[in-house]
């Protein structure tokens, strides 16, 4: 069965996923890259703040908080 890619913002909390694509300008991509958020990386959501607040994610052993809008532009595939 082919896996479907979804925006990171739609991924449920505590589910593991793999980053498959990122949309956005060069600047945005670069910023994400320097923080270790890249295609092929495994990512989990640690928490989601209510009312479209930011997400806290875990990627390469490190946690960071990013806005919902950014999370929307990162596409992931759920890992089973």
């Amino acid at each position, binding site marked *: 069965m082919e896996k479907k890619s979804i925006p990171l913002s739609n991924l449920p909390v505590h589910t593991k996923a793999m980053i498959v694509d990122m949309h956005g300008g060069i600047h945005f991509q670069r910023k994400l890259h320097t923080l270790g958020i890249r295609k092929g990386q495994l990512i989990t959501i640690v928490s989601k703040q209510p009312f479209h607040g930011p997400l806290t994610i875990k990627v*390469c052993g490190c946690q960071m908080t990013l806005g919902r809008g950014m999370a929307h532009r990162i596409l992931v595939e759920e890992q089973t």
Partner: protein
Amino acid sequence: MKKSIVLMGNPNVGKSVVFSRLTGANVIASNYPGTTVDFSKGKMKLTNEYAELIDAPGTYSLEPSNKAEEVAKKMFNQADVIINVVNATNLERNLFLTLELLEQNKPVIIALNMWDETQHLGIHIDEKKLEQLLGVPVIPIVALTGEGINHLVDRLSDATINKKIQPTSEEGRWIEIGSIIKKVETVEHRHHTWRDRLSDLTIQPVTGFPLALGIIFSSFWLVLLIGENIKGYLLDPLFEVYYKPFILSIGEGIGPGFLYRFLISQTYGVVEFEEALGMLTTGLYVPLAMVLPFIIAFYFLLSILEDTGYLPRLATLMDNIFHKLGMHGHGIIPVFLGLGCNVPGMMATRALETRKQRFIAATLLSIAVPCLAQTSLLFAIFSEENLGEAAVYAPFVYLLLVFSTLIVLYFIAGYILNKTVKGESPEIFLEIPSYRMPHWKTTIKKTWMRIRWFLKDALPWMFFGVFLINVLYTIGFIEWIATALQPVFTALFGLPGETSVVLLSGFLRKDLAVGTLLSFPAGTFSAMQLVITATLLTIYFPCIATFVMLLKELGIKDMLKATVIMIIAATTVGVSLRLLLLGV
């Protein structure tokens, strides 16, 4: 020319701790990214010469994305040697900057910090192999305890321009990093620790919000408790028992007259420290006995909060609210620091990315965030002793009125500024560090450094303020201007003419203005008038030191804009409070 050595690395890898270790100088370090927003310079002894050591702000890459990172880039350009501080627990991400640095034809040495943490986390790094692959020295260190620092100094002369790493594209760098990591790092699986659980509890909204409220309230309660005790059991007795007889006997030597009023008290033979207004009485008592105890308590608790790594989690929880105000969650940091003193708070606005965010953060800080000196004096004004007959309600009701006005103002002004100031408000993007147990020695040292800063930098201003007020009083200037401005203050805010004295001295130092308020005879102000005056004092202008900082951070044009906003805010709030509280 002296050699210039620059410390570079990602945010929150411990550069400032390394800096303190290498120079013996003291700089503030914390467990959250962005503590160092400017650079610090120090001297460091090499084998037979001194070199200049520079602590640059943290950066993820040599292509800057905020003001602090621009500073880092500038520091890099003027460096002779780079010490690249790397967080060993997060090698993969840190190596990106390392590779960028290695491509630049400057001698580099790598300090692999937090070496002790890797063991707890089950991370094994082959540092010899890493040294081989990168072609520059790699030295494991634990900056907090000083382990490995001597070794780092010994090998500083081995720093070389690498010959292994070739300039490549960004993609190329990541591929390179992948292959390096594979060769040098192995990670054991480990179980969840209490730190992971605590981290989870404090960042999940359901548990995080109640915990945040609890932490903030208990922190402030502790500040008050510790401060009151230092004042009540240590400083008040010192002043009353030892200093008062001394100052009274000096007074007898001087005899009644101008000099007595200037130095000791307005009333001959009577010294009440809070109200005497003499240089040697109130001038010393206000900063040392009324403000200092709370400063000590505040900075002690702030240091603990900073070193544990809690603040970025608080920023995450608060992000939503701060977005409505045109900033993002990081905007809570300037507020937190500003509650101690607005000057460091102003500096912390630099970690925000855009001009709009910085402008809003700085303006709101100077309008609606009272520094601790003000807060402790507000407590003095609205104390039972001072209010006396004027109190209709319990003293805390008035305090609550002042603080809730400030909070409401912070939000309303922020909301309006967000709608009217042009520019972008990017989303939050913040690293969440692991919790760390505060190292008690570091915490105490940091608290002491901040207290010393207060004594050296803020205290002389307060003293100067008392001096100037005394001079102005003596020559009759204060009465003159009070009479001149009386109609304005009475018409706008329903306040007695004396208010102008207070507001005038408030420009020099607000806490002092509040002190002047205390010295007026009972009955000059009604309790509600005191509320209005105290609130206005906080809003209308920051103290001179903060003003200078505001000018530095925003530039002349934006500083003037901020000033206009302050005047508008003060007038609006003053008039509204008058209508609400005085009903006229």
